[in-house]
């Protein structure tokens, strides 16, 4: 049995359904991300797991035990809050030792464990400091150390890096991955930042409107989004309105208004006449002044409309004859060249037929 089982959980606030019949299970030792836009129900779900909120329907099982009616202080689950919620009147050592004190350990045992825990998060010299004397990253580490010190079954993290700047965020992400591996405790990590989820998770659930849209490993979610929302929310994606013309031997032809027909890999449920979108990642779109035609590729001519120079790559926005725009990504790795095209340049774009995915809404 999984460590955490969320079974058909629903939570309503008046007419608003925050969490809509969600079921998922989390294994011991797993780093699991709940990803979704704000208001998608991910934080509500987390609060129900922690015990601060109760579902209107369904149940939550931890380690084989039904958690219904069990208050947060009696659950073997700890939370790292978005604001860290460090106790401002306690030193770092007292903050980290708090759960042990609540568990009734004696002062000497607490002290030894706190020293060890602070050592683990490289805060050995900070035990006498107060939270307001720490930087954002240090506070975050104290919060994590405090939540892990009495080894809960499960650690919940509610956007713990949201308040940090980009550089520090990346460093803390690496630290969290290492720490999670070391302690071996299952992490459930809530975030609205898709890059963060992709970077951290072993498995992740993409949520929208209180429902899980897709649950899988990050690379599979990125490469094989299940629907338009997931494709659009994770990474950047070209989305072209398309209609299935015909399906034949593992391939299908799609009509894109004003552009003509393109080929794509057949999706299981697609039938001729289905309407949907063609989702295409920019890095899978090739761009060049002239490209060799290939029967396994879709090929169009267009004009550079604009570009985004990002340092390692440049994203070119190419305008096609029907007025739709497609983003194509080009690595800036060619020596001696910073940039390949200017706005207005005539270019050709192509993508392999298995690059685009036909998705219905």
């Amino acid at each position, binding site marked *: 049995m999984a460590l955490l089982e969320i079974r058909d959980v629903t939570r309503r606030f008046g007419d608003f359904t925050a969490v809509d019949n969600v079921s998922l299970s989390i294994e011991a030792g797993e780093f699991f991300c709940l990803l979704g836009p704000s208001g998608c129900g991910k934080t509500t779900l987390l609060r129900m797991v922690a015990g*601060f909120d109760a579902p209107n329907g369904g149940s939550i099982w931890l380690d084989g035990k039904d958690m219904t009616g069990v208050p*947060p*202080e009696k659950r073997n689950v700890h*939370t790292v*809050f978005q604001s860290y919620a460090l106790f401002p009147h306690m030193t770092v050592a007292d903050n980290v030792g*708090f*759960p042990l004190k609540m568990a009734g350990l004696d002062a000497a045992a607490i002290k030894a464990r706190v020293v060890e825990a602070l050592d683990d998060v490289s805060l050995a010299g900070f035990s006498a400091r107060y939270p*307001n004397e720490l930087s954002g990253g240090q506070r975050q580490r104290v919060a994590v150390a405090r*939540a892990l010190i009495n080894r809960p079954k499960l650690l919940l993290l509610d956007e713990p890096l949201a308040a940090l700047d980009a550089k520090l965020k990346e460093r803390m992400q690496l630290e969290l991955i290492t720490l999670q591996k070391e302690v071996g405790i299952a992490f459930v990590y809530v975030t609205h930042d898709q890059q963060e989820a992709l970077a951290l998770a072993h498995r992740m659930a993409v949520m929208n409107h209180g429902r899980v849209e897709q649950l899988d490993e990050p690379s599979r979610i990125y490469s094989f989004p299940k629907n338009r929302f997931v494709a659009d929310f994770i990474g950047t994606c070209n989305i072209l309105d398309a209609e299935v013309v015909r399906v034949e031997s593992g391939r299908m032809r799609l009509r894109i208004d004003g552009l003509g027909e393109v080929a794509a890999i057949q999706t299981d449920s697609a039938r001729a006449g289905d309407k949907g979108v063609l989702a295409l990642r920019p890095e899978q779109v090739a761009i060049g002044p002239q490209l060799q035609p290939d029967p396994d590729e879709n090929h169009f001519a267009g004009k550079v409309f604009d570009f985004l120079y990002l340092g390692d790559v440049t994203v070119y926005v190419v305008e096609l004859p029907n007025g739709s725009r497609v983003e194509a990504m080009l690595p800036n790795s060619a020596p001696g060249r910073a940039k390949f095209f200017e706005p207005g340049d005539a270019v050709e774009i192509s993508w392999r037929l298995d690059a685009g995915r036909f998705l219905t809404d």
Partner: protein
Amino acid sequence: MDSRRLNKWLISGPPLLYLVLFFAIPTLIMVVASFRYPGDFGGLAPLVEQGEDGRRVVNLTLENYQRFFSDALYAELFLKSFWYAVITTAVCLVIAYPLAILIARSPKRHRDLLVLLVILPFWSNFLIRVYAWMIILGPQSVFTGALNAVLGWFGFEPVRLLFTPFAVVVGLVYVHLPFMVLPLYANLEKHDPALLDAAQDLGAGAWQRFWRVTFPLSLPGVFAGAALVFIPAFGIFAIPDILGGTGGIMIGNVIKQQFLDTRDWPFGSVLSMVLTIVAVALAGLAAWYARRARALA
């Protein structure tokens, strides 16, 4: 003078002037008065006199302070007033704390109304409200009657409530309660609810959450409220006058007596000085504690 400094003076000038005129100068007058001789018919003897040898002499003395320190009666009165003020502060704290938590944790739209209810008594005259307690605690009142009836069932003698130390403390608590509620509420309202969630999450039950999180964080409010209650309660004379009878007098009554009845202004000034010094010392201590507690918040 540049306009920023001018603005600074324009803003801080009037309150400064007010404090100098109505606080610093009167205090200074009292300080000097406490070293002067009483006048023959009350008030103060002239400060500068033409001596017999024609030289001008300044009449200053330590006699008033000697009198204060040589008669234990006054120290006892101080101590008694101190205890009344301590009890009042403690009772106010015990009543005000739950009230302030209730207000701070009620929905935002109700809070203003609840705060208004706390300060509502200020809209009517202080003396009228204290006289009302005279009626409530009086021997004829329903309250006293009911209390004595209950005591009677258990075989106790009926008690008198009015003109007792009990009545004084009731009056003191009643009058000063809002001064405890307001700073406590102002403090508790600012607490981050996530801290209580975190404490609960980490294994703290309701009682632990209060003692380890809410209460220590509210200490600045506790000290502010305690100072606002203790200092006026220490020197008050109106409430013991009305509710205390002969046994319930406090140091404030004696000071008033020295100025208005005995007309010994220098000795009244001595008592006032001692009262002020004790109160300022205690307030300073409270402020120091409060600042230390706040520095961490």
